[in-house]
């Protein structure tokens, strides 16, 4: 069968599955809509958490980033898994015992303040929309490359599917759809990884293949060969970092703490029946995530080797079809700087900026570029996002593997988008409407507001997907930095410091948020020309500044606490209560 037909079948079947699950698991009450009625099995919740967490960035972009960055890419591997240790040990069990619907709910009740609740809602909405925009770009890439439809139509199709299961099913629909999406995405990630591991090293387990010798008779190990090849081409060695140690440290820390503070991940732990289930669920979540995260560095290394082997010193006319396919949608651009018709690959940018095509066709059939060439020998620009998606083609795997990867990329993007949209809609209907503006509405009315908010949020996300703001990639640092500097410290102190009060927590959140926000905006938007290590505070990049924001949050909170009075007795009793696992009921409206 044609690869194109297979792609339509795989993607169509997976969409039908998600919609089917949504219809089977409609939500009838706010408790079902917000936390799936609190009756999700810990293993199922672990799987749903893994799909919720692993976004288009994990599935599509991460291995590509590691392939280019080598050791420096480790920050994502450690940061996005190590956060689960913090989540499991410091937050999940206690928030489950607290037993409410949302993260601002905890902050509002614990700090007996609707100001604190509103600050929580603002952090949450900002973090979540930043994230959603990235998912929609992923959906757009997959649709335009594999389904050969316009990005607009692709995004609308994706939104329609999310609409059906998020608006109908709420958390209940999303949970069971995410379980299915996890199965699709992990299968789609592992199958090509295993094939490529066998091709490159003869070892079918990618994690072991990464440490094996290359099956080309050279007797070199994968990493030694990569180091040698890259140094030859003028890059730094794959296994050595180029970033300063303090920056790697700060970025990893911000990603870990940010992960633990992300609202759409935290609420997943509100859906299990008991406190001990929340712990077990976090364990399963990390196991399911680690399956992909330990495979990704292997995929990255194999992809880089394969890419250099097939592209470097190959004449453009004989270059494989995938290269031209990706060139067609603008993610690869070749400029024949020395006029020999052969692609030369090396360190440094080939030309200034991203490829700007003139619309003409060059002597070898390539798309002509109008960019100003640089002095480097490198002639080819490759977008990092294509690596995982192009891998099956680069390794010449059968058509069904390509179709599977397309379905997997969509599963990763849609599952995360749905989780994010749900926390946005619940924080609006529950925290803003029910708890702040209109406390008298009934459960039914609140549920209707939740559905309306979800529909509006999907509309906004769809708009962002079709008209992506140019700064999407740059604001990703926002989500983690802000979560690390605002929500995480407030929740942590809420549990572990019985005496922390309203004034301290709010002052801490506002300071952490404002500092981190200002630092990122300054270096990314106001003065991007200053965005280099000699101008950074302590040599910490905007990606890692959430770590400093978190420290500031704690310091300001402690200082303000010393100057103000202790929280009321009933709040201190509540803190005592959430520290003990016994008697965690299902959250209910009151």
């Amino acid at each position: 069968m044609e690869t194109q037909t297979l792609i339509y079948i795989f993607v169509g079947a997976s969409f039908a599955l998600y919609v089917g699950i949504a219809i089977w698991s409609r939500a009838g009450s706010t408790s079902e809509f917000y936390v799936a009625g609190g009756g999700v099995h810990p293993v199922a919740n672990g799987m749903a958490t893994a799909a919720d967490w692993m976004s288009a960035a994990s599935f599509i972009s991460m291995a590509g980033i590691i392939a280019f960055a080598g050791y420096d890419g480790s920050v994502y591997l450690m940061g996005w898994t190590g956060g689960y240790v913090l989540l499991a040990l410091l937050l999940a069990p206690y928030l489950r015992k607290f037993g409410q619907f949302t993260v601002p709910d905890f902050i509002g009740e614990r700090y007996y303040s609707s100001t604190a609740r509103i600050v929580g809602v603002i952090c949450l909405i900002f973090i979540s929309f930043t994230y959603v925009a990235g998912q929609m770009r992923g959906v757009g890439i997959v649709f335009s490359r594999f389904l050969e439809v316009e990005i607009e139509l692709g995004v609308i199709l994706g939104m329609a599917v999310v609409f059906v299961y998020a608006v109908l099913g709420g958390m209940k629909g999303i949970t069971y759809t995410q379980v299915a999406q996890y199965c699709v995405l992990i299968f789609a990630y592992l199958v090509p990884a295993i094939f490529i591991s066998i091709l490159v090293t003869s070892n079918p387990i990618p994690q072991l293949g990464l440490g094996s010798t290359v099956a080309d008779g050279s007797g070199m190990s994968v990493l030694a060969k990569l180091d040698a090849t890259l140094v030859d081409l003028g890059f730094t060695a794959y296994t050595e970092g180029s970033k300063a140690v303090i920056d790697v440290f700060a970025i990893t820390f911000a990603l870990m703490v940010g992960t633990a503070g992300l609202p759409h991940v935290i609420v997943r732990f509100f859906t299990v029946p008991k406190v001990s289930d929340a712990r077990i669920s976090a364990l399963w979540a990390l196991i399911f995530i680690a399956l992909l995260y330990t495979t990704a560095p292997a995929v990255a290394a194999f992809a880089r080797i394969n890419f250099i082997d097939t592209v470097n010193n190959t004449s453009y006319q004989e270059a494989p079809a995938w290269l031209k396919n990706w060139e067609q949608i603008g993610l690869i651009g070749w400029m024949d700087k020395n006029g020999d018709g052969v692609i030369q690959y090396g360190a440094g940018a080939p030309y200034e900026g991203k490829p700007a095509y003139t619309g003409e066709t060059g002597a070898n059939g390539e798309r002509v570029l109008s960019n100003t060439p640089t002095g480097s020998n490198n002639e080819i620009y490759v977008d990092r996002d294509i690596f995982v998606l192009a891998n099956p083609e680069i390794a010449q795997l059968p058509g069904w593997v390509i179709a599977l990867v397309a379905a997997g990329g969509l599963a990763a993007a849609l599952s995360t988008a749905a989780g994010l949209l749900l926390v946005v809609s619940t924080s609006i209907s529950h925290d803003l409407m029910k708890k702040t503006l209109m406390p008298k509405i009934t459960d039914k009315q609140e549920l209707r507001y939740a559905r309306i908010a979800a529909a509006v949020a999907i509309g906004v996300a769809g708009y962002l997907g079709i008209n992506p703001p140019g700064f999407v990639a740059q604001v990703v640092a926002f989500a983690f930095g802000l979560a690390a500097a605002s929500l995480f410290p407030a929740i942590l102190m809420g549990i572990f410091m019985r005496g922390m009060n309203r004034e301290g927590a709010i002052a801490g959140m506002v300071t952490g948020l404002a500092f981190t926000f200002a630092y990122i905006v300054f270096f990314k938007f106001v003065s991007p020309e200053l965005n280099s290590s000699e101008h950074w505070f302590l040599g910490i990049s905007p990606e890692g500044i959430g770590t400093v924001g978190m420290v500031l949050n704690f310091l300001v909170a402690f200082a303000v606490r010393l100057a103000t009075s202790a929280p009321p007795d009933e709040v201190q009793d509540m803190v005592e209560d959430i520290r003990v696992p016994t008697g965690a009921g299902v959250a209910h409206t009151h």
Partner: protein
Amino acid sequence: MSGSNDGGSNVYHHEGGNMPPHDHHDTEILTEENVRSYWHANLRLLGLLLAVWFIVSFGFGILFADPLNSIQFFGFKLGFWWAQQGSIYVFIGLIAYYVFAMKRIDRRYGVDDD
């Protein structure tokens, strides 16, 4: 709220709410002292596990990655392996041990939820 103040010593009554009926600690009463020592046992466990968490990722994977890279480990430089593989396996082990050890501590102090 499960805390009630009866003249100096807090007594925590076990609330079963909508949990299925269970007999082994329906009659138990959690004293303030019991809850306090439970919390200290919990904090000791957290301190230990977070120390390991820090050492494998920030220690082996970042701060000491360079010296460790001079050691070969199954085809990997050791520092690189910790950063891209080893730390993740240890994270799983840490949470697994936490699940197991917390259950034991919960039972010892009579605050478990099953």
